[in-house]
Protein backbone atom coordinates (compact mmCIF):
# COMPACT_ATOMS: atom_id res chain seq x y z
CA UNK A 1 0.00 0.00 0.00
CA UNK A 2 2.02 2.92 -1.24
CA UNK A 3 1.46 6.14 0.62
CA UNK A 4 2.01 9.18 -1.50
CA UNK A 5 3.41 12.18 0.27
CA UNK A 6 2.54 15.52 -1.18
CA UNK A 7 4.79 18.43 -0.42
CA UNK A 8 2.08 21.03 -0.76
CA UNK A 9 -1.25 20.37 -2.32
CA UNK A 10 -4.73 20.50 -0.92
CA UNK A 11 -4.81 20.75 2.80
CA UNK A 12 -7.49 18.22 3.52
CA UNK A 13 -6.00 15.32 1.63
CA UNK A 14 -2.35 15.87 2.42
CA UNK A 15 -2.91 16.26 6.12
CA UNK A 16 -4.67 12.98 6.60
CA UNK A 17 -2.19 10.78 4.76
CA UNK A 18 1.06 11.80 6.57
CA UNK A 19 -0.70 11.61 9.93
CA UNK A 20 -1.88 8.14 9.07
CA UNK A 21 1.72 7.03 8.39
CA UNK A 22 2.93 8.63 11.56
CA UNK A 23 0.23 7.11 13.71
CA UNK A 24 0.98 3.63 12.41
CA UNK A 25 4.67 3.96 13.01
CA UNK A 26 4.11 5.62 16.36
CA UNK A 27 1.70 2.90 17.37
CA UNK A 28 4.17 0.16 16.55
CA UNK A 29 7.01 1.78 18.43
CA UNK A 30 4.86 2.54 21.47
CA UNK A 31 3.62 -1.01 21.69
CA UNK A 32 7.20 -2.31 21.53
CA UNK A 33 6.26 -4.73 18.80
CA UNK A 34 9.70 -4.54 17.24
CA UNK A 35 11.31 -5.80 20.43
CA UNK A 36 8.76 -8.58 20.85
CA UNK A 37 9.24 -9.85 17.34
CA UNK A 38 13.00 -9.58 17.51
CA UNK A 39 13.07 -11.56 20.75
CA UNK A 40 10.85 -14.25 19.24
CA UNK A 41 12.98 -14.56 16.11
CA UNK A 42 16.21 -14.81 18.09
CA UNK A 43 14.78 -17.56 20.26
CA UNK A 44 13.58 -19.39 17.20
CA UNK A 45 16.98 -19.26 15.52
CA UNK A 46 18.58 -20.64 18.68
CA UNK A 47 16.11 -23.45 19.12
CA UNK A 48 15.60 -24.43 15.46
CA UNK A 49 12.54 -26.43 16.29
CA UNK A 50 10.76 -28.48 13.64
CA UNK A 51 7.41 -26.88 14.34
CA UNK A 52 7.88 -23.12 13.97
CA UNK A 53 4.19 -22.29 14.43
CA UNK A 54 3.88 -24.31 17.64
CA UNK A 55 7.17 -22.92 18.91
CA UNK A 56 6.09 -19.33 18.36
CA UNK A 57 2.70 -20.04 19.99
CA UNK A 58 4.43 -21.53 23.05
CA UNK A 59 6.86 -18.66 23.20
CA UNK A 60 4.19 -15.98 23.19
CA UNK A 61 2.12 -17.92 25.74
CA UNK A 62 5.09 -18.07 28.07
CA UNK A 63 5.82 -14.40 27.64
CA UNK A 64 2.22 -13.50 28.33
CA UNK A 65 1.93 -15.54 31.50
CA UNK A 66 5.30 -14.29 32.73
CA UNK A 67 4.17 -10.71 32.24
CA UNK A 68 0.93 -11.48 34.05
CA UNK A 69 2.63 -13.10 37.01
CA UNK A 70 5.12 -10.34 37.28
CA UNK A 71 2.49 -7.78 38.14
CA UNK A 72 -0.04 -10.23 39.52
CA UNK A 73 2.27 -11.60 42.20
CA UNK A 74 2.88 -8.17 43.61
CA UNK A 75 -0.63 -6.88 43.66
CA UNK A 76 -2.53 -9.92 44.83
CA UNK A 77 -3.36 -10.40 48.45
CA UNK A 78 -2.33 -13.10 50.88
CA UNK A 79 -4.95 -15.69 49.99
CA UNK A 80 -4.01 -15.88 46.38
CA UNK A 81 -0.34 -16.19 47.26
CA UNK A 82 -0.85 -19.15 49.58
CA UNK A 83 -3.20 -21.03 47.34
CA UNK A 84 -1.27 -20.46 44.22
CA UNK A 85 2.14 -21.35 45.60
CA UNK A 86 2.08 -25.00 44.55
CA UNK A 87 0.50 -24.31 41.19
CA UNK A 88 2.79 -21.34 40.66
CA UNK A 89 5.81 -23.50 41.34
CA UNK A 90 4.58 -26.13 38.92
CA UNK A 91 4.09 -23.49 36.28
CA UNK A 92 7.57 -22.08 36.78
CA UNK A 93 9.03 -25.56 36.61
CA UNK A 94 7.34 -26.35 33.34
CA UNK A 95 8.44 -23.01 31.95
CA UNK A 96 12.02 -23.60 33.05
CA UNK A 97 11.96 -27.05 31.47
CA UNK A 98 10.68 -25.53 28.25
CA UNK A 99 13.66 -23.21 28.21
CA UNK A 100 16.07 -26.01 28.93
CA UNK A 101 14.67 -28.03 26.06
CA UNK A 102 15.30 -25.28 23.52
CA UNK A 103 18.91 -25.92 22.76
CA UNK A 104 20.95 -29.11 22.78
CA UNK A 105 23.84 -29.15 25.24
CA UNK A 106 26.32 -29.22 22.37
CA UNK A 107 25.24 -25.70 21.38
CA UNK A 108 27.25 -24.39 24.25
CA UNK A 109 26.41 -20.68 24.39
CA UNK A 110 22.69 -21.10 23.63
CA UNK A 111 22.44 -23.85 26.22
CA UNK A 112 24.21 -21.72 28.86
CA UNK A 113 21.86 -18.81 28.19
CA UNK A 114 18.86 -21.06 28.59
CA UNK A 115 20.21 -22.50 31.83
CA UNK A 116 20.62 -18.98 33.15
CA UNK A 117 17.04 -18.09 32.20
CA UNK A 118 15.71 -21.27 33.78
CA UNK A 119 17.71 -20.64 36.96
CA UNK A 120 16.33 -17.13 37.24
CA UNK A 121 12.80 -18.43 36.72
CA UNK A 122 13.19 -21.05 39.39
CA UNK A 123 14.68 -18.70 41.95
CA UNK A 124 11.52 -16.59 41.71
CA UNK A 125 9.33 -19.36 43.06
CA UNK A 126 8.66 -20.01 46.68
CA UNK A 127 6.68 -17.79 49.04
CA UNK A 128 7.29 -14.15 48.30
CA UNK A 129 7.79 -11.96 51.32
CA UNK A 130 4.77 -9.94 52.36
CA UNK A 131 6.94 -6.94 52.74
CA UNK A 132 7.93 -7.03 49.11
CA UNK A 133 4.37 -6.52 47.94
CA UNK A 134 3.97 -3.03 49.37
CA UNK A 135 7.02 -1.09 48.24
CA UNK A 136 7.29 -2.49 44.73
CA UNK A 137 3.55 -2.10 44.00
CA UNK A 138 2.16 -2.34 40.54
CA UNK A 139 4.98 -0.45 38.97
CA UNK A 140 7.56 -3.19 38.76
CA UNK A 141 8.01 -6.88 39.22
CA UNK A 142 8.85 -8.55 42.51
CA UNK A 143 12.49 -8.78 43.44
CA UNK A 144 14.07 -11.73 41.74
CA UNK A 145 16.14 -12.76 44.74
CA UNK A 146 14.39 -15.44 46.68
CA UNK A 147 15.01 -15.38 50.42
CA UNK A 148 17.44 -18.31 50.15
CA UNK A 149 19.76 -17.05 47.39
CA UNK A 150 19.32 -19.94 44.95
CA UNK A 151 16.97 -22.60 43.73
CA UNK A 152 15.34 -24.67 46.45
CA UNK A 153 16.81 -28.14 46.68
CA UNK A 154 13.46 -29.84 46.20
CA UNK A 155 12.78 -27.92 43.02
CA UNK A 156 16.29 -28.59 41.74
CA UNK A 157 15.92 -32.33 42.29
CA UNK A 158 12.52 -32.26 40.63
CA UNK A 159 14.00 -30.44 37.61
CA UNK A 160 16.72 -33.06 37.24
CA UNK A 161 14.23 -35.90 37.49
CA UNK A 162 12.07 -34.35 34.78
CA UNK A 163 15.09 -33.83 32.53
CA UNK A 164 16.16 -37.44 32.85
CA UNK A 165 12.71 -38.86 32.25
CA UNK A 166 12.09 -36.59 29.26
CA UNK A 167 15.41 -37.72 27.84
CA UNK A 168 14.20 -41.30 27.83
CA UNK A 169 16.16 -42.57 30.81
CA UNK A 170 14.30 -45.03 33.05
CA UNK A 171 13.99 -44.03 36.70
CA UNK A 172 16.04 -46.96 37.96
CA UNK A 173 18.94 -46.06 35.67
CA UNK A 174 19.01 -42.41 36.61
CA UNK A 175 18.60 -43.01 40.34
CA UNK A 176 22.34 -43.51 41.07
CA UNK A 177 23.14 -40.37 39.10
CA UNK A 178 20.60 -38.32 40.98
CA UNK A 179 22.00 -39.59 44.25
CA UNK A 180 25.35 -38.06 43.29
CA UNK A 181 23.82 -34.76 42.25
CA UNK A 182 21.36 -34.68 45.11
CA UNK A 183 20.82 -31.63 47.28
CA UNK A 184 18.73 -31.53 50.42
CA UNK A 185 15.21 -30.18 50.02
CA UNK A 186 15.81 -27.19 52.22
CA UNK A 187 19.15 -26.18 50.71
CA UNK A 188 19.61 -23.27 48.32
CA UNK A 189 21.37 -24.41 45.16
CA UNK A 190 23.73 -21.84 43.64
CA UNK A 191 24.00 -21.29 39.90
CA UNK A 192 27.19 -23.31 39.32
CA UNK A 193 25.78 -26.45 40.87
CA UNK A 194 22.45 -25.99 39.11
CA UNK A 195 24.23 -25.72 35.77
CA UNK A 196 26.42 -28.70 36.54
CA UNK A 197 23.41 -30.82 37.41
CA UNK A 198 21.41 -29.81 34.38
CA UNK A 199 24.29 -30.32 31.97
CA UNK A 200 25.14 -33.71 33.47
CA UNK A 201 21.54 -34.89 33.13
CA UNK A 202 21.33 -33.67 29.53
CA UNK A 203 24.60 -35.42 28.62
CA UNK A 204 23.52 -38.53 30.51
CA UNK A 205 20.30 -38.87 28.55
CA UNK A 206 22.27 -38.67 25.30
CA UNK A 207 24.68 -41.24 26.69
CA UNK A 208 21.93 -43.70 27.65
CA UNK A 209 20.25 -43.39 24.26
CA UNK A 210 23.59 -44.17 22.66
CA UNK A 211 24.07 -47.15 24.96
CA UNK A 212 20.65 -48.49 23.98
CA UNK A 213 21.58 -48.15 20.33
CA UNK A 214 24.90 -49.84 21.01
CA UNK A 215 23.15 -52.81 22.56
CA UNK A 216 21.02 -53.15 19.45
CA UNK A 217 24.17 -53.07 17.32
CA UNK A 218 25.93 -55.67 19.46
CA UNK A 219 22.89 -57.95 19.25
CA UNK A 220 23.12 -57.62 15.52
CA UNK A 221 20.49 -59.01 13.20
CA UNK A 222 19.84 -61.95 15.54
CA UNK A 223 16.66 -61.72 17.54
CA UNK A 224 17.87 -62.86 20.93
CA UNK A 225 19.95 -61.08 23.55
CA UNK A 226 23.67 -60.53 23.07
CA UNK A 227 26.37 -62.72 24.58
CA UNK A 228 27.61 -61.66 27.99
CA UNK A 229 31.32 -61.89 27.20
CA UNK A 230 30.82 -59.93 24.01
CA UNK A 231 29.01 -57.12 25.83
CA UNK A 232 31.62 -57.07 28.55
CA UNK A 233 34.41 -56.95 25.96
CA UNK A 234 32.83 -53.98 24.24
CA UNK A 235 32.22 -52.10 27.46
CA UNK A 236 35.71 -53.04 28.57
CA UNK A 237 37.25 -51.08 25.70
CA UNK A 238 35.23 -48.04 26.74
CA UNK A 239 36.35 -48.47 30.33
CA UNK A 240 39.99 -48.65 29.24
CA UNK A 241 39.69 -45.53 27.11
CA UNK A 242 38.10 -43.61 29.98
CA UNK A 243 40.83 -44.73 32.35
CA UNK A 244 43.51 -43.61 29.92
CA UNK A 245 42.13 -40.15 29.38
CA UNK A 246 41.47 -39.61 33.04
CA UNK A 247 44.59 -37.62 33.89
CA UNK A 248 44.08 -34.09 35.08
CA UNK A 249 46.65 -32.65 32.73
CA UNK A 250 44.48 -33.28 29.66
CA UNK A 251 47.49 -33.81 27.46
CA UNK A 252 46.65 -34.30 23.82
CA UNK A 253 48.68 -37.50 23.68
CA UNK A 254 46.45 -39.05 26.34
CA UNK A 255 43.38 -38.34 24.26
CA UNK A 256 45.07 -39.85 21.21
CA UNK A 257 46.07 -42.90 23.19
CA UNK A 258 42.57 -43.32 24.54
CA UNK A 259 41.02 -42.95 21.11
CA UNK A 260 43.41 -45.57 19.73
CA UNK A 261 41.92 -48.01 22.22
CA UNK A 262 38.44 -47.63 20.75
CA UNK A 263 39.37 -47.69 17.11
CA UNK A 264 37.52 -50.18 14.89
CA UNK A 265 40.61 -52.39 14.78
CA UNK A 266 40.88 -52.63 18.54
CA UNK A 267 37.17 -53.31 18.90
CA UNK A 268 37.31 -56.03 16.27
CA UNK A 269 40.17 -57.57 18.20
CA UNK A 270 38.30 -57.38 21.51
CA UNK A 271 35.14 -58.84 20.02
CA UNK A 272 37.00 -61.64 18.27
CA UNK A 273 38.73 -62.47 21.53
CA UNK A 274 35.49 -62.82 23.49
CA UNK A 275 34.58 -66.43 24.16
CA UNK A 276 31.19 -67.49 22.82
CA UNK A 277 30.12 -69.31 25.97
CA UNK A 278 28.98 -67.60 29.14
CA UNK A 279 25.29 -66.82 28.92
CA UNK A 280 23.50 -63.73 27.73
CA UNK A 281 23.09 -60.17 28.86
CA UNK A 282 19.79 -58.43 28.45
CA UNK A 283 19.25 -54.81 27.50
CA UNK A 284 18.60 -53.54 31.00
CA UNK A 285 21.77 -55.05 32.41
CA UNK A 286 23.82 -53.63 29.55
CA UNK A 287 22.31 -50.21 30.08
CA UNK A 288 23.06 -50.34 33.80
CA UNK A 289 26.65 -51.42 33.18
CA UNK A 290 27.18 -48.58 30.70
CA UNK A 291 25.50 -46.10 33.04
CA UNK A 292 27.81 -47.20 35.82
CA UNK A 293 30.85 -46.24 33.74
CA UNK A 294 29.45 -42.75 33.33
CA UNK A 295 28.12 -42.24 36.84
CA UNK A 296 31.37 -43.34 38.47
CA UNK A 297 32.97 -40.24 36.96
CA UNK A 298 30.37 -37.74 38.12
CA UNK A 299 31.50 -35.59 40.98
CA UNK A 300 29.36 -35.83 44.08
CA UNK A 301 27.75 -32.56 45.12
CA UNK A 302 28.84 -31.64 48.60
Amino acid at each position, binding site marked *: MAEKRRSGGTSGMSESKPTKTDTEREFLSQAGVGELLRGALLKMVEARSEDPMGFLADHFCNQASEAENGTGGCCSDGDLLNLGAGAHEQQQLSRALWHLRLAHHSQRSAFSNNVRVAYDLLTQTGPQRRGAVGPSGPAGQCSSNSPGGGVRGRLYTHTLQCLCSEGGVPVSTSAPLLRRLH*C*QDHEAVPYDIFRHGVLTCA*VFSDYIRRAQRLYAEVC*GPAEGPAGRTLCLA*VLGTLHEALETSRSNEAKVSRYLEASAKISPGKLAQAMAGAEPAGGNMDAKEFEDAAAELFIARVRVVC
Partner: protein
Amino acid sequence: MSVNTVPCTVKPTVTLQIGDAETDSSRPGVYVIDVTLPIGQTVNIQEISFKNYYTAYVSVRLLRRDGEGAAKWTTCLRNHCLMPSPHTEEGSQDYCSVYRQQMLIEPDNVTSVRLILRQPSSAWLNFSVEDIKIHPCLNEDSEWDIPDWLSDLTQVDQLCDLQGLPDPQTVSSSIQQMWALTEVMQTNQTTASIGRFDVDGCYDINLLSFT
Protein backbone atom coordinates in the same frame (compact mmCIF):
# COMPACT_ATOMS: atom_id res chain seq x y z
CA MET B 1 69.47 -29.81 5.61
CA SER B 2 69.61 -29.53 9.39
CA VAL B 3 69.58 -26.13 10.94
CA ASN B 4 71.84 -26.59 13.91
CA THR B 5 75.54 -26.00 13.28
CA VAL B 6 78.60 -26.18 15.41
CA PRO B 7 80.47 -22.93 15.92
CA CYS B 8 83.89 -23.18 14.33
CA THR B 9 86.68 -21.02 13.00
CA VAL B 10 87.53 -20.98 9.33
CA LYS B 11 91.17 -20.14 8.81
CA PRO B 12 92.26 -18.14 5.78
CA THR B 13 93.06 -20.14 2.69
CA VAL B 14 96.57 -21.37 2.09
CA THR B 15 97.78 -21.87 -1.41
CA LEU B 16 99.89 -24.80 -2.41
CA GLN B 17 102.13 -24.29 -5.36
CA ILE B 18 105.50 -25.33 -6.57
CA GLY B 19 108.17 -22.75 -6.39
CA ASP B 20 108.41 -19.48 -4.56
CA ALA B 21 105.07 -17.88 -3.70
CA GLU B 22 106.25 -14.31 -4.12
CA THR B 23 108.12 -14.54 -7.39
CA ASP B 24 105.91 -17.00 -9.18
CA SER B 25 103.16 -15.15 -10.98
CA SER B 26 101.03 -18.07 -12.07
CA ARG B 27 97.84 -18.57 -10.26
CA PRO B 28 97.62 -21.44 -7.79
CA GLY B 29 95.48 -24.43 -8.50
CA VAL B 30 95.16 -25.81 -5.00
CA TYR B 31 93.85 -24.17 -1.90
CA VAL B 32 93.63 -25.59 1.57
CA ILE B 33 91.08 -24.38 4.09
CA ASP B 34 91.23 -25.47 7.72
CA VAL B 35 88.16 -25.43 9.91
CA THR B 36 88.82 -25.85 13.61
CA LEU B 37 86.55 -26.31 16.55
CA PRO B 38 87.15 -24.50 19.85
CA ILE B 39 89.87 -26.15 21.87
CA GLY B 40 88.73 -29.25 23.67
CA GLN B 41 85.51 -29.69 21.74
CA THR B 42 84.87 -32.61 19.47
CA VAL B 43 81.98 -33.24 17.20
CA ASN B 44 80.31 -36.19 15.47
CA ILE B 45 79.69 -34.79 12.03
CA GLN B 46 76.40 -35.41 10.30
CA GLU B 47 76.96 -33.07 7.40
CA ILE B 48 79.40 -30.45 6.04
CA SER B 49 77.69 -27.82 3.92
CA PHE B 50 79.20 -24.99 1.90
CA LYS B 51 78.68 -22.81 -1.13
CA ASN B 52 80.91 -23.53 -4.06
CA TYR B 53 82.70 -20.78 -5.96
CA TYR B 54 84.32 -22.26 -9.04
CA THR B 55 86.04 -25.12 -7.24
CA ALA B 56 86.26 -28.24 -9.41
CA TYR B 57 87.27 -30.92 -6.90
CA VAL B 58 87.32 -31.06 -3.13
CA SER B 59 88.98 -33.51 -0.77
CA VAL B 60 88.18 -33.58 2.91
CA ARG B 61 90.50 -34.68 5.69
CA LEU B 62 89.56 -34.99 9.31
CA LEU B 63 91.64 -34.68 12.45
CA ARG B 64 90.13 -37.23 14.78
CA ARG B 65 90.86 -37.77 18.41
CA ASP B 66 90.76 -41.42 19.29
CA GLY B 67 90.29 -43.07 22.67
CA GLU B 68 93.75 -42.43 24.03
CA GLY B 69 93.72 -38.76 23.14
CA ALA B 70 96.09 -38.93 20.16
CA ALA B 71 95.02 -37.00 17.09
CA LYS B 72 95.20 -38.42 13.63
CA TRP B 73 94.53 -37.03 10.18
CA THR B 74 92.50 -39.25 7.86
CA THR B 75 90.97 -38.68 4.47
CA CYS B 76 87.21 -39.03 4.45
CA LEU B 77 86.47 -37.74 0.96
CA ARG B 78 88.78 -38.07 -1.99
CA ASN B 79 88.49 -35.82 -5.05
CA HIS B 80 84.79 -35.24 -4.83
CA CYS B 81 83.72 -33.60 -8.06
CA LEU B 82 81.81 -30.35 -7.79
CA MET B 83 82.05 -29.20 -11.38
CA PRO B 84 81.58 -31.90 -14.08
CA SER B 85 83.69 -29.88 -16.46
CA PRO B 86 86.23 -27.55 -14.82
CA HIS B 87 86.21 -25.14 -17.76
CA THR B 88 82.47 -24.57 -17.80
CA GLU B 89 80.03 -22.93 -15.45
CA GLU B 90 78.04 -25.99 -14.45
CA GLY B 91 78.12 -26.55 -10.70
CA SER B 92 80.34 -23.55 -10.17
CA GLN B 93 78.13 -21.75 -7.70
CA ASP B 94 76.10 -24.58 -6.23
CA TYR B 95 75.27 -25.15 -2.61
CA CYS B 96 76.74 -28.49 -1.64
CA SER B 97 76.56 -30.86 1.26
CA VAL B 98 78.80 -33.73 2.16
CA TYR B 99 76.97 -36.25 4.27
CA ARG B 100 78.19 -38.71 6.82
CA GLN B 101 77.15 -41.60 4.63
CA GLN B 102 79.39 -40.43 1.78
CA MET B 103 82.51 -40.40 3.92
CA LEU B 104 85.06 -43.16 3.87
CA ILE B 105 85.44 -43.26 7.62
CA GLU B 106 83.17 -42.52 10.57
CA PRO B 107 83.47 -38.77 11.25
CA ASP B 108 83.28 -39.06 15.03
CA ASN B 109 85.29 -37.16 17.63
CA VAL B 110 86.53 -34.69 15.07
CA THR B 111 88.48 -31.63 16.18
CA SER B 112 89.49 -30.19 12.85
CA VAL B 113 88.43 -30.39 9.20
CA ARG B 114 90.67 -29.65 6.25
CA LEU B 115 89.19 -28.92 2.81
CA ILE B 116 91.57 -29.27 -0.10
CA LEU B 117 90.24 -27.45 -3.15
CA ARG B 118 91.47 -28.04 -6.69
CA GLN B 119 90.70 -26.18 -9.87
CA PRO B 120 92.85 -27.34 -12.79
CA SER B 121 91.28 -24.97 -15.31
CA SER B 122 93.00 -21.65 -16.00
CA ALA B 123 89.73 -20.07 -17.08
CA TRP B 124 88.88 -18.79 -13.65
CA LEU B 125 90.70 -16.03 -11.88
CA ASN B 126 89.88 -17.26 -8.46
CA PHE B 127 88.12 -20.14 -6.73
CA SER B 128 87.17 -21.10 -3.22
CA VAL B 129 84.28 -22.34 -1.09
CA GLU B 130 82.22 -20.08 1.13
CA ASP B 131 79.93 -20.30 4.09
CA ILE B 132 81.29 -23.55 5.50
CA LYS B 133 79.05 -25.09 8.15
CA ILE B 134 79.50 -28.26 10.15
CA HIS B 135 76.34 -29.99 11.34
CA PRO B 136 76.59 -32.37 14.25
CA CYS B 137 74.67 -35.59 14.73
CA LEU B 138 71.38 -35.22 16.55
CA ASN B 139 70.79 -37.55 19.45
CA GLU B 140 68.34 -40.23 18.46
CA ASP B 141 66.25 -40.31 21.58
CA SER B 142 66.63 -36.77 22.87
CA GLU B 143 63.23 -35.21 22.43
CA TRP B 144 60.40 -37.52 21.61
CA ASP B 145 59.79 -41.04 22.72
CA ILE B 146 57.52 -42.87 20.37
CA PRO B 147 54.80 -44.23 22.60
CA ASP B 148 54.12 -47.93 22.56
CA TRP B 149 50.54 -47.65 21.50
CA LEU B 150 51.49 -46.02 18.20
CA SER B 151 53.21 -49.16 17.05
CA ASP B 152 50.30 -51.21 18.28
CA LEU B 153 47.64 -49.91 15.89
CA THR B 154 45.71 -52.70 14.24
CA GLN B 155 43.76 -52.47 11.03
CA VAL B 156 40.32 -54.00 10.77
CA ASP B 157 41.21 -55.69 7.49
CA GLN B 158 43.98 -57.65 9.12
CA LEU B 159 41.48 -59.56 11.21
CA CYS B 160 39.37 -61.64 8.92
CA ASP B 161 37.71 -63.83 11.52
CA LEU B 162 34.66 -61.65 12.11
CA GLN B 163 31.81 -63.95 11.14
CA GLY B 164 28.83 -63.60 13.37
CA LEU B 165 30.26 -60.60 15.16
CA PRO B 166 28.78 -57.11 14.93
CA ASP B 167 30.32 -54.61 12.53
CA PRO B 168 33.36 -53.06 14.25
CA GLN B 169 32.89 -49.72 12.51
CA THR B 170 29.40 -49.06 13.88
CA VAL B 171 30.25 -50.39 17.32
CA SER B 172 33.40 -48.29 17.42
CA SER B 173 31.45 -45.21 16.35
CA SER B 174 28.95 -45.66 19.18
CA ILE B 175 31.65 -46.29 21.74
CA GLN B 176 33.52 -43.20 20.57
CA GLN B 177 30.43 -41.05 21.01
CA MET B 178 29.82 -42.44 24.47
CA TRP B 179 33.43 -41.75 25.37
CA ALA B 180 33.17 -38.20 24.06
CA LEU B 181 29.98 -37.56 26.05
CA THR B 182 31.66 -38.75 29.23
CA GLU B 183 34.62 -36.51 28.55
CA VAL B 184 32.29 -33.54 28.00
CA MET B 185 30.69 -34.21 31.34
CA GLN B 186 34.05 -34.53 33.08
CA THR B 187 35.50 -31.35 31.65
CA ASN B 188 32.44 -29.37 32.69
CA GLN B 189 32.49 -30.43 36.32
CA THR B 190 32.28 -27.59 38.73
CA THR B 191 34.40 -27.29 41.82
CA ALA B 192 31.76 -25.17 43.54
CA SER B 193 30.32 -26.58 46.70
CA ILE B 194 26.94 -26.04 48.18
CA GLY B 195 28.46 -25.20 51.51
CA ARG B 196 27.23 -27.81 53.89
CA PHE B 197 28.47 -27.85 57.41
CA ASP B 198 27.31 -31.26 58.51
CA VAL B 199 29.82 -33.85 59.59
CA ASP B 200 28.76 -37.35 58.52
CA GLY B 201 25.19 -36.14 58.02
CA CYS B 202 24.88 -34.69 61.49
CA TYR B 203 24.79 -31.08 62.63
CA ASP B 204 25.93 -31.74 66.18
CA ILE B 205 26.85 -28.48 67.90
CA ASN B 206 29.96 -29.94 69.44
CA LEU B 207 31.26 -31.03 66.06
CA LEU B 208 30.48 -27.72 64.44
CA SER B 209 32.37 -25.79 67.01
CA PHE B 210 35.60 -27.33 65.81
CA THR B 211 35.24 -26.19 62.16
